[in-house]
């Protein structure tokens, strides 16, 4: 996994300098300021200059009603602290007021958060980037017409809806300590989005996320819930995260991934009850990144804000594949990080109530569920995207044309990526009858790609330092090997 650290990705980062100035109210644990703290750390760590930095647009009501009900958005747009009294009834209906207070600039805040995730999804769709980050997003509790758990507009759902325009299957992973109920509910009945949520369950907000909640209708088996108990530490988390995600990737085969990086699963969180360190949390990002799929990272919970900004800074560095020092650089909010002023935090000695046996049982149960998935869901309609994919490629090329520095490797990647769709073309040949032969067909272009690899290497040599090169090469190999292993494993399954 540490090898993967070095694979460079094109990372787009969405941030609006205003976001830190929204204030939920006195005593409210949700502090958008943490996003600004993260941003300042990124600047002073020198990660800023390695990414494309975008200021997102403000999502319009039209964009938001792609998921949310018109009424609800209209309500959010019109409510202000000074006219709250006129909206008493609606506030109750939309669950605004208690956990989700009305504050100054509420609607703008939602617009920025949603705008970032939507723009990031569009960016991924256009293949103008491999990883997009919107720490201002990740508000996974918001429902179709109801605010919940400090979330008003579900930027994740909006982002996924955008991704669904170009991707047959989108995987959503949620490592917030709270259940990602808003996203799960939004896609509970569809087989095009699989939601996987790791969360504390039992006597905990929002109360959903039972192991037995697996989706409904067409979406049955497409909701995966991993109920956990207090005190999850890095090792336990990895021991459940890695096998589950591996299995999900194998069986669901998404073409894009959204990861909600809620940092309230860190140790010492004001509302959380897990015992993860920044490293353990970041490992999840690292692991998902390894799959080389279009990857959208969003923020989420996190209420001990100095740890949140530590965590997200580290995860940005993981996404960029560049290591950063444990010493925090000086920045405007340096004093927040005392007394140690270090990036990494150590776990507490709280008891881990998740025994290995418990995790093992959960895991095997979930594996059983995943076995129920039909292979390659939605295959029958894959013919259409195929054309689109080619044209999209041309489009993308047009877009990148002025930029001479786009490496060949990126284009190669794109070709590889297209292969996912190309197999449906083969379907017409009558060659594909079952999943096994389907795989066989898929392998062919992959071999081509391998033969092209040396070219890519040569290209890369120009930009990357020679000593890094060998490692990159290794990465590439392991990457493709991994992929193929996975495919093999799957076709035998």
């Amino acid at each position: 996994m540490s090898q993967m650290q070095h694979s460079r990705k094109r990372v787009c980062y969405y941030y609006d300098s205003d976001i830190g100035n929204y204030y939920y109210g006195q005593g409210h644990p949700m502090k958008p300021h943490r996003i600004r703290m993260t941003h300042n750390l990124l600047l002073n760590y020198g990660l800023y200059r390695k990414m494309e930095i975008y200021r997102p647009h403000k999502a319009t009501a039209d964009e938001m009603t792609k998921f949310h009900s018109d009424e609800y958005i209209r309500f959010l747009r019109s409510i202000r602290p000074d006219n709250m009294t006129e909206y008493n009834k609606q506030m109750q209906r939309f669950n605004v007021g208690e956990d989700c207070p009305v504050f100054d600039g509420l609607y703008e805040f939602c617009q920025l958060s949603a705008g970032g995730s939507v723009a990031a999804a569009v960016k991924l769709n256009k293949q103008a980037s491999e990883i997009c980050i919107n720490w201002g997003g990740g508000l996974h509790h918001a429902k179709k017409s109801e605010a919940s758990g400090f979330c008003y507009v579900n930027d994740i759902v909006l982002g996924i809806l955008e991704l669904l325009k170009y991707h047959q299957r989108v995987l959503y992973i949620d490592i917030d300590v709270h259940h990602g109920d808003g996203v799960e509910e939004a896609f509970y009945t569809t087989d095009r989005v699989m939601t996987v949520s790791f969360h504390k369950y039992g006597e905990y907000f929002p109360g959903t996320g039972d192991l037995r909640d697996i989706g409904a209708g067409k979406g049955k088996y497409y909701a995966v819930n991993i109920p956990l108990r207090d005190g999850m530490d890095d090792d336990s988390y990895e021991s459940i995260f890695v096998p589950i995600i591996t299995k999900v990737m194998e069986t669901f085969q998404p073409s894009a991934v959204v990861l909600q990086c809620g940092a309230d699963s860190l140790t010492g969180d004001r509302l959380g009850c897990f015992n993860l360190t920044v490293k353990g949390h970041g490992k999840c990002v690292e692991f998902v990144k390894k799959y080389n799929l279009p990857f959208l990272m969003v923020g989420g919970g996190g209420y001990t804000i100095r740890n949140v900004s530590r965590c997200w800074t580290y995860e940005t560095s993981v996404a960029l594949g560049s290591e950063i020092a444990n010493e925090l650089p000086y920045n405007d909010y340096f004093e927040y990080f005392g007394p140690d002023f270090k990036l990494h935090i150590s776990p507490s000695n709280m008891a881990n109530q998740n025994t290995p046996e418990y995790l093992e049982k959960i895991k095997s149960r979930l594996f059983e569920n995943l076995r129920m998935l039909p292979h390659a869901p939605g295959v029958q309609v894959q013919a259409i995207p195929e054309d689109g994919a080619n044209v999209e490629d041309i489009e993308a090329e047009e877009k990148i044309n002025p930029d001479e520095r786009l490496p060949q490797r990126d284009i190669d990647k794109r070709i590889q990526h297209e292969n996912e769709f190309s197999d449906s073309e083969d379907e017409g040949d009558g060659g594909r009858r079952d999943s096994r032969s389907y795989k066989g067909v898929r392998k062919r272009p992959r071999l081509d790609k391998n033969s092209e690899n040396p070219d890519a290497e040569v290209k890369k040599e120009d930009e990357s330092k020679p000593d890094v090169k060998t490692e990159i090469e290794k990465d590439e190999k392991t990457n493709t090997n991994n992929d193929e292993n996975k495919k093999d494993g799957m076709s035998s399954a």
Partner: protein
Amino acid sequence: MPAEYHELHGNHENANLALGGLQDSNNMTANMYRVGDYVYFETSSGSPYQIRRIEELNKTPNGNVEAKVMCFFRRRDLPQTLIMLADKHQSGMDESLSSNNGSASSAGAASNGSSIGNNGSTSTGFGELTAKQRHQMKHRELFLSRQVETMPATHIRGKCCVTLLNETESFLSYLNKDDTFFYCLVFDPAQRTLLADKGEIRVGSRYQADNISSAPLTLAERETDRQDSKELETLIWTPRHSLTDRQIDTFLVISRSVGTFARALDCSSSVKQPSLHMSAAAASRDITLYNAMDTLHRLNYDIAEAMNSLVPNSGPVLCRDEMEEWSASEANLFEEALEKYGKEFSDIRNDFLPWKSLKNVIEYYYMWKTTDRYVQQKRVKAVEAESKLKQVYIPNYNNKAGASVQPTSGGGIIGQSTIIPIPNTNNPANGKQTSVSIINGSSNGDSALLLGGNNGKTCEGCQTSQSPQWYAWSTTAQVQCRLCQTCWSYWKKYGGLKVPSRMDEIDACERNRATTGPGSDDEGKSPGSGGPQRPHRCSVSTCGKEFKLKAHLSRHYASAHGMDFRAGNTVATASGGQSAGIGSHSAGIGTELELLKRNPELTIIPCNVNAGSPRPVMKTRSAFYLRTSALARAARRICANQIRSRHAARAPHQPINAAPLRHICSSPEFARQSPAELRVLARATRPRLRPRVADIASRLGNHPQPSQPGEWDWLQLTAPGQRKQPEHVSFPRPPKAPDGSLLYERVPNKSDIDGINVTPPIPPTLQVQPNLKRPRPQFDELNGTDGIMPITLPLSGPPPSKRPHHTTSRDVLPSPSGSVVNNSTGPSHSMPLNGRPHALQNVPMSRSNARKQVMSWMDAPDDLYFRATDQTKKARRNLSLIELRRAARKPWRKLANPQRTARPDDMVVILD
């Protein structure tokens, strides 16, 4: 004095570090209780522990620690009807566990999220357990409630672990591990309902994202879809440029130096930042860097162009953030406002800084937090917030004597007295049969009455006859049993016996009754002590009739047995649970003598109709007074030799062998006495003859001369000069003022003293706070619900708030029925009111390894007394008489050779 606490305050900065440093010993961590821990709480010595989760630890002004806890209920605490529901749920779950096909979930609700197929091998269903295991499993099931109460932390008796049962888990994993419990359902004590602790994902067009097509967009659709991502975002920076890192760094340094120079030129800045260093620091803030990066991007990463733009014609570029922008007076205003309004920034802006925008204010606030000014404020706040603790250290509890029975015990007789409880309106146990009472450390007189002594009885739980210690135990009024040590600790922890006993048969028949009748009687309704309903059975051995209501039982007593049964009798243990040898019985005093005539035996051995109830009694003590009846006094006189009352008074722990006493008292000549005669007997028999003063005086007057010379000299006053001067003057005369008067120190006014002495201790109130219950739109019961829910609870409980500790005003609603006032006693003997702190520290209760705690003596501390162990007794014997006396006179003084073998904390028992 309570145990000494190691406190770690919720100081975020140090939390991680401090926690690491605390793991110096296992004992330390085992006794370290944190917020979020599940713990046993002892509220009464005879009933099982209560299981709670610590939500908050607060230090009270008098140095005690109170825990705000979330309640878990045991099966036995639930009303019978709900137990049935729970059983149904259990079996439903069992079914779903063992079923191979994906059948309906737990309670058969139509649910989309129903349990899926499970090959049964991974988990052990309830049905696969043996009968004994089934029985024990019932002790491991708890019911979560959203009820919050406050308890003194000293009542904590250890940690346990409570988890939400996951259907993949085998029950055996709980049985095989000590102190583990599970729960599936949530009990609402106020509404007396059960519901599953489970939210649901709703299904329907109102909840799911609509218009999800089955496939991605086609090419044509994509073209019509948004083409222009420019509208969605603005590029601020791109890594695709020709600059090296070094060049960027250089440019950043340049822009900072330009900024420094700009500040030197700017007159307003030069006032604020008189030194170059300050200007440079101000120029190095992140806003300068952002501006530099933006400039680079704007000018297409052309360093030369960018440098030019740093110094336009108007002078060097000056970027200032809120921190620098604000004047000193504005900053002062802000701090003042912050003090007044807290962090209500819109109020602050409106009332103090209307010329700033809200965003300015917020941005400034977050930067201000990095300043020294904030750190100072925080320190002040930290001192204030010291009452909120992260964890607390509580040493092991050593008082094993709770309800112990001495091996020799028979029926006790010394407590021939009646305890009349003074009704306490706050006590929910009042008016119900609840009692844990030990007659001078022996079992209740009841057992003597019914069973004629329990010598030779075996343990109710495991039938063993060997145990280092025995404990009186009973779940219902009519049967008295005893338990060995292991069974006792099992009972305390799990609220039952290891194997089904006679009690469970009673339970079973109760359950049968409950299925036939509505089973709703008025009792056990109180949320605090909502125990299972038990029949009221006549305790006269030959009768044993059962009654549904206690009133019926007392009528039965009156009519059939001529006994006055007081329904409202609450008997509490004597102060300290184990200290005084006081018996209790519920026969009315008024009729005692009358009863005596009919049944002498009954009166001599006071019967204890309401023996220990299994119901958890929140309150351990209520005020009482001891009324010794004439009969008791008479018995004491008659059996003076057997009782050795002086000895018994000195050693109240020791049981008194009642058999010979009973024999004497029931002997014919005594039993024949009439009440009047008894009264005479009860009177002090040997009035001491004292000569009258007049006689003495007249006798003295008859001797005008001393018989010998000098015999009366001692009557003369010694001249002051000849008096022997003491070596040490305890109360030296105060100095004299110039006018000759003595200068006394000011003596406090009476009102002051009153204020000190009379201040009643604030009783730590057990506040029952129903958690946030806010109405919420009804969910469509489409999936994920348990079948029970619609039956028991029309109102589906709201999901827990995301902020569990966020209290609103609605939150704090002390429910009158559930609130219990812990009758913390007044100042105890070890806390003299003129308490000198040094005296406190030297009392042998201080733990050598614990932090000394200076207590505020204004508030009543908890009771404690010194329990002499064998070692201390032995040590005492080693002391010479003089030493012993001296020590008794000056208890605060350290002994010369203490030779303490026992750990000091073994000897201190804290009672509260």
